[in-house]
């Protein structure tokens, strides 16, 4: 497993001004600090590669989803196609988001990946962190640790969280080869489709996959793609 680190630094105006006027009184120009967090994701499943990680540092004004309500198109795309680009772009345009970062490459079962995200903020108070990926041998599942309070993490300190799987509620769980984008299927699946044809257009806790080994003849999945919660372990360490 190749481990990539990717860092996005939002440079606030105050820091830019400080660079231009380094000889001036900078009492008001150094109020923004950088808070850097390393997120280490371990895939705990037997047969569900996780799509490239999306890591967001935010405040309470932004959230990836609300349980029981319909998913955003960005989350739908992440959960149906394993493509987090819309999700990250949408987050990045929200004033309550301080950093939105993608990992590089899928996280195969048993593997670990690291993503580093840096937030520039006046204080650590109120900082939250969210991680999400798609288990790609599904129709529209996503694994997430949602709005974790990182405001109390000291430099060098880390916390462990366990992620469960949700269903985006945006695509029928047919498990068929033409709808599952992961390697267990044909590789010809369409991934994202704007139709919302699940049992209801709302995020719910994923029931798992039935698979052809358990009698769903239209499924392209086998028993090895089944999983239980938790689906991933997420360690969050404050680096700076």
């Amino acid at each position, binding site marked *: 497993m190749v481990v990539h680190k990717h860092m996005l630094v939002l440079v606030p105006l105050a820091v830019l001004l400080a660079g231009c006027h380094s000889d001036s009184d900078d009492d008001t120009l150094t109020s923004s600090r950088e808070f850097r967090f390393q997120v280490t994701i371990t895939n705990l499943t037997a047969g569900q590669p996780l799509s490239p990680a999306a890591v967001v540092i935010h405040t309470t004004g932004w959230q990836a989803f609300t*349980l029981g309500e319909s998913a955003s198109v960005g989350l739908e795309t992440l959960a149906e196609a394993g493509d987090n680009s819309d999700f990250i772009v949408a987050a990045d345009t929200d004033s309550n988001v301080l950093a939105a970062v993608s990992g590089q490459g899928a996280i195969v079962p048993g593997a670990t990946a690291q993503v580093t995200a840096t937030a520039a903020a006046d204080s650590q108070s109120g900082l939250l962190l969210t991680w999400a990926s798609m288990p790609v041998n599904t129709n529209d599942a996503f694994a997430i640790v949602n709005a974790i309070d990182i405001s109390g993490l000291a430099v060098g300190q880390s916390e462990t969280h366990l992620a469960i*799987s949700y269903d985006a509620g945006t695509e029928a769980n047919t498990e068929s080869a033409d709808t599952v984008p992961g390697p267990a299927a044909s590789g010809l699946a369409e991934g994202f489709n704007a139709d919302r044809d699940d049992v209801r257009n709302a995020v719910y806790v994923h029931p798992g996959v039935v698979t052809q080994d358990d009698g769903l003849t239209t499924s392209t999945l086998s028993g090895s793609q089944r999983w*239980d919660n938790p689906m991933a372990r997420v360690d969050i360490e404050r680096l700076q």
Partner: protein
Amino acid sequence: MKRVILTLTLAAAPLIVQAAEFDVEIHNPTRGLYYTPLLVTAHPPSMKLFEAGEAASSELQAMAEGGDIMPLVTALDSAGATTVANPAAGLLAPGETTTAIVNTNNATANTQLSIVAMLLPTNDGFLALNSLTVPTQPGTYTYNLNAYDAGTEANDELRGSGAPGQAGMPVPPPLDPVLGTNGTGAASNAEGYVHIHRGNLGDTDTTGGKSDIVSTLHRWLNPVTRVTVTVK
């Protein structure tokens, strides 16, 4: 992690008074399970609705096999518990939410929160929060609940009865057109003790097969319930 930290904080601050009123919001986040009438109760630490690993009481059995919470309500009333029975006024469908307002102003000994309801379609499955110590500090607290098996009835997964001790599952109107028929019955015996439910087997044959449960609709992975407690 956060909850542990909060608990430690409270231990160091013994002068905080007991919460007198709190809201309990209950959301059904499953794909296809219905809850029978919910029981939400604040009670003293000296009592519990069940103990995992031990046999279910007859009151718990009536709830888990047929959704009948009245025997539990009666027992809780006589013990001085503060109980909200059936806040959703009937079944709570997948995706729905209900709220119970619990007021322990006149019963400060009722520091523990328990919630139960039968899960349909199952033979004797139920969701449970079992004697949570209610936080005293004002705030919003979120909990995920697991599914338990009362261990009182064989999980044959067939249409049948909700009466305690009688085989099969009760089938109220919203499930009637969805469930299969004429299953031969999943092999099972009553386990004899309360435990984490192993989940539904189900099948894809709606006119036969082993089970009347539909595998593509009625399986689950825990949690089966999201509870949000707001302490005022």
